[in-house]
Every structure is written in structure tokens, then in C-alpha cells.
């Protein structure tokens, strides 16, 4: 009997941070203009010490102004989506739950697009609208997924898939009938893409990420018990209503956050928590931070591939995550059916 210890959590997270660092360095290195690892490390080191004059202008432009912001965006999006996915899977008691599959990403995308149509330049409005779209969608899917007062796994998934396809159709309708609006291309919202820089300071987005992931982490012991059923969790002393409120709101914030800067990137929230479970077990006290780091690694790697495999053309990063995620979804679904 070897229960999870804080040291164990810390060690695994540190190892994942190292993997993420390697992924970041590789992502900074590859591209149309290759930069050596030594130059990358020196550029990052000088930038950290604010010695701007010692950074060559080319590196400043390519490493610090083009590649690094995109990588930081990828880390934000990956960490957000995978933490939200892990949270939804426990609350909805469905291993196939993920912001994309449940339509929550589409809801957030629709909210973001409506805010762009209504007030294209209002600061922070897009994030708020994406959050509103996310939380309205998860509420709708939750109620549509109930049968006889109980959450039904199959009905919930169908409700999510139908909601996602309906919202995607609405997004397409808006994109095609409202020409000349300040929108960044249909692929951005439907497939997910990291090529457009965020209009909001990344600091604020990271602040929200830490708050939302931290909030979900405070419920991780409770989520472990909710995995055995809400009623059982209640017997064991879990305040299920409070946990649901915290996790639904925080997961919707995370989905809104990710979608507002990258569109609807699919399967990250499905793929990452399952891989982490296979590697390190199901305990949410480890799963939440490890999923956040794992999601960051996946999106950074996927985006690096998206911008290099068919260079100079770029693929949407969502296409890369879907190529990896769809087979996993089918595998999990078949395993469940059996």
C-alpha cells in the first residue's frame, strides 16, 4: 500500500516540466529560419535578464516576437483544455467527455464570434463571451444528457455531439453571411489555430489559467470520490454541489480562455488525461497538474508539427490534435462498449 505523496506529485510534475522545456526549445529551433539551441538558450537567458542589447535583432524578432508568443499561447491552450477535460470526465462520469466532444468549445467559439460581431475592439470581451458560451453550452448539454432525472452516459455524449454540430453550423452561417467582419478565418474557429497572436496581454490569460486550474485542484480529493458516484461521494462527506459549481465554472473559464485565443482545438482534453492515467494512475491530485503540463506539451508539439510538416504552408493545430485524438476516442468508445 503506497499512497500518493506530495513528493511523488512534485517529482512527476518536475519531469513533465523538463519534457515541456525540451519541447519548447525544439519548437523555438525549427522553422523556415533555423536557430541553434545555443542561440535559443542565450536569447532566452538575456531576455530573462532584460539585456535586450545583447540579443541579435534577427533572434529578437524570430525567437522572442514570433515563435515564443505562439508557444506560450500553445502552453496556455493545452493546459486549459486538458484540465477542463479531466474535470468534465469526473463530474459527468464519462471517460469520453472533453470540451470539444461535448460542444463546449463550439459554444465558446460562438460566444467569441458574437462578441467580435457586436464589439470587435472591446478589451477582454471576447474571453468573457467565450466563457459565457462555454458555460451556457455545458448547462444545456448537462440537462439534455439526463434521462429520468439521472445523467446518462450515452445520452450525454449524443447531446454533446449534436450540440457541437448545431453550434458549428451556426458559426459557419455567421461566417458566410457576415462578410467583412473582424474574424480570423473559419478554420480558426472550427479547427483551431495558434497562428494569430492574442489581442489580450498573455499575463492576464495566464493569471486566469492559474486561478482556474488551482480552483479545480482544490477539489481533486473530492473528484477522486465522485469517480465512484455522486451518491457514494456524498456518503463519504463530499459536498458534491460545491465541487460541481467550482469545476463547471472553472472548466468553462478554461475552455473559454483556450477557444478565445485559438478557436476550437479538439481532443486535447480527451487524449491527455487518458494518457496521464495510463502512465501515472487515476488520482486527481496528480492527474490535474500532470494533465495541465501534458496538455501543454501536446499542443506545443502539435503546433510545431502543424507549421513544419507541409512548410511553407501551415496546418491548423486542431487538425494535428484530431489526427492523434480521433483514434484514441474510437479506441476508448469500443473498449467501453465491450
Amino acid at each position, binding site marked *: *500500500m503506497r*499512497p*500518493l*505523496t*506530495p513528493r511523488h506529485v512534485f517529482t512527476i510534475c518536475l519531469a513533465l516540466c523538463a519534457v515541456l522545456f525540451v519541447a519548447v526549445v525544439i519548437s523555438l529551433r525549427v522553422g523556415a529560419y533555423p536557430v541553434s539551441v545555443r542561440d535559443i538558450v542565450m536569447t532566452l537567458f538575456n531576455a530573462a535578464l532584460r539585456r535586450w542589447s545583447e540579443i541579435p535583432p534577427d533572434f529578437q524578432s524570430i525567437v522572442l516576437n514570433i515563435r515564443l508568443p505562439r508557444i506560450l499561447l500553445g502552453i496556455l491552450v493545452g493546459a486549459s483544455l486538458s484540465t477542463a477535460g479531466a474535470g468534465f*470526465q*469526473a463530474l459527468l*462520469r*464519462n*471517460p469520453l467527455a472533453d470540451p470539444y466532444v461535448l460542444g463546449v468549445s463550439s459554444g465558446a467559439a460562438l460566444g467569441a464570434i458574437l462578441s467580435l460581431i457586436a464589439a470587435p475592439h472591446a478589451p477582454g470581451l471576447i474571453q468573457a463571451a467565450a466563457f459565457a458560451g462555454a458555460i451556457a453550452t455545458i448547462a444545456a448539454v448537462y440537462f439534455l444528457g439526463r434521462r429520468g432525472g439521472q445523467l446518462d452516459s450515452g445520452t450525454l455524449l449524443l447531446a454533446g455531439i449534436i450540440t457541437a454540430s448545431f453550434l458549428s453550423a451556426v458559426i459557419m452561417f455567421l461566417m458566410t453571411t457576415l462578410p467583412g467582419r473582424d474574424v480570423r478565418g473559419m478554420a480558426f474557429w472550427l479547427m483551431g489555430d495558434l497562428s494569430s497572436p492574442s489581442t489580450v496581454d498573455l499575463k492576464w490569460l495566464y493569471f486566469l489559467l492559474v486561478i482556474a486550474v488551482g480552483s479545480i*485542484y*482544490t477539489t*481533486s*480529493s*473530492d473528484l*477522486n*470520490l465522485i*469517480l*465512484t*458516484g455522486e*451518491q*457514494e461521494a*456524498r*456518503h*463519504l*462527506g*463530499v*459536498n458534491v454541489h460545491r465541487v460541481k459549481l467550482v469545476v463547471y465554472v472553472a472548466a468553462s473559464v478554461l475552455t473559454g480562455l483556450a477557444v478565445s485565443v485559438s478557436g476550437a482545438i479538439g481532443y486535447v482534453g480527451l487524449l491527455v488525461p487518458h494518457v496521464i*492515467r495510463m502512465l501515472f494512475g*487515476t*488520482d486527481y*491530485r496528480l492527474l490535474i497538474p500532470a494533465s495541465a503540463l501534458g496538455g501543454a506539451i501536446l499542443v506545443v508539439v502539435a503546433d510545431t508539427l502543424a507549421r513544419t510538416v507541409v512548410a511553407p504552408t501551415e496546418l491548423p493545430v486542431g487538425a494535428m490534435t484530431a489526427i492523434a485524438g480521433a483514434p484514441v476516442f474510437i479506441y476508448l468508445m469500443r473498449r467501453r462498449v465491450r
Partner: protein
Amino acid sequence: MSTPAQSGASLTSPARVTGGEGTPRVKVEQASYAYAATDRSAPKFTLGPASFEARQRELVAILGPNASGKSTLLMLLAGLAKPLSGRIEIDGTEVSKLDIRTRAQRIALVQQESELLFPLRVWEYVLQGRYPHGRRLRFESDEDCLLAGNALAQVGADAHRDRWMDQLSGGEKQRVILARALAQRPSLLLLDEPTQHLDIGGKVELLRRLRKLADENRYTVLVVTHELNLAAEFCDRIVLLHKGKCLRVGTPAEVYERDLLGEVFEAPLEVEMRPGGRPRVILRGSH
């Protein structure tokens, strides 16, 4: 009326049968409840006022046919619903007024099945029983592991500690679910039809184990069951329910009356009194 008889073959008697001791640990006073599909619709099921007491070291069976209100009564005892009228107390405090963690420290509920979303090892599952005793986000201590290990040993499932929950047989799983409840270190142990998926050997073993737990751990154990003879053999007290009404409370000998059981279970039943004062139910004309 019960028919005293010199019985033939019988189940092995428990090591020791006590009649409970001290002041009542659980007091149910005129507790009632009603279910409705919606807030405005008429109740679909009503549990009429029920009253009884249970002391420490007492094993109490809640008996009755299907839809008699057994599980509803158990839900009220577990504090998962508040009685519409009356009150249910544990150690002098109303159950519905206990905060959720304190309630989980005092009352453990063992349900028929535990459906896990992701695979879990037996020891991880049993450690969940320590949750009510910890702070939020707390990692389990050595003491928690010791108590979880003791709980597994008490139910004879020590050898299974490293196995996956979904690889256990029905009887093994039932014991592990019981071990998690024991790890809670409750004073009141509630079991909802624990014998449902067990063969006769498993049923006897479980009831004997509950008897022993009540005696040795000073638990008060309330068990919902359909097993009339096992309840008569092992329990100190019987609560008989029928169509949402509490018909009779007393020792097995007081409750097991031929006409009463025949009417409640709608079957031609005969009651024999065995040596030692424990009744046995048989089908009329079956001997």
C-alpha cells in the same frame, strides 16, 4: 402465531449474540418521508411514521417486501434526506443537522454495488474511507494506511489489497466495499441489501461477519435484507415494513408471526421456533 418446534438441520449459530448495550445510539421517532416526481405532483411513495431504537453492539435487520420503504428508511438514517416529520438521532444529535463530514465520520453506508469509472486498486478504494477524517487535499498518512489495512484484514480481504477492483468476484467486492466503510471508523454501519449478489455460503459468512463487527467494534449495524432466516439467526432486532408502514419492531421471536409474515410477504409461510428462541421461516407444506 409462531409454532414452537424442535428444529432439525440449522445454520451454524454465531459465536455470540448480544442484545445491545447502553443508551440508544440511534433513535428514530415518528420519522416519515414522501417521494414525488416533481415538487408540485402528488407523492409517488410515502413512508409512514416509523419509530425504533438501536444500541451499540446491536445488529438490526430492516425487513419487508419490495417497495415497502426499506431503502427509503435507510436513506433517512444515512442523512441523505431529511424526514418530512419526526426525527432521527445518532448519539443524541439529529442526523440531518450534522455537517456532511461529521456525518460521514459517524455513519457509513454500504450499498449493493460500487460502479467505478476508472480502474482502482483495492487498497486505493479502501483508503477512500479515510476521506471524512482528513482536511481538503490532504494526502493519506501512515495512520490512514494502517487503519485501511486493518479494515481489509477484518473483512478477510487482506490478500486482495493489490488487485484491481474490477477483477474481484461479487463476494470479494462486497467485502472490500465493507472494508471501505470500516475504514471510516463509524459508529453506525448501514448496509443496503448486501447479500443480494452472494451465494448462500457468502450470505452466511457476511451476516456472521457483521455480527462479529457489531460485537467486537461496538458498532450499531442496520442491514436491509430479504433474508428472513439469516436475519432471525443473527440479528438482535427486526424492523418490519410493509407498503410504507412500520408494522412491527422487536426481537425476531416477537416479529416473526405466521399470519403477519404471510400477509406481508403474500406467501404461505410457517414459523418454527428453534431451541435458543430463534424462529425459522419455512414454506407451509414444504415438510
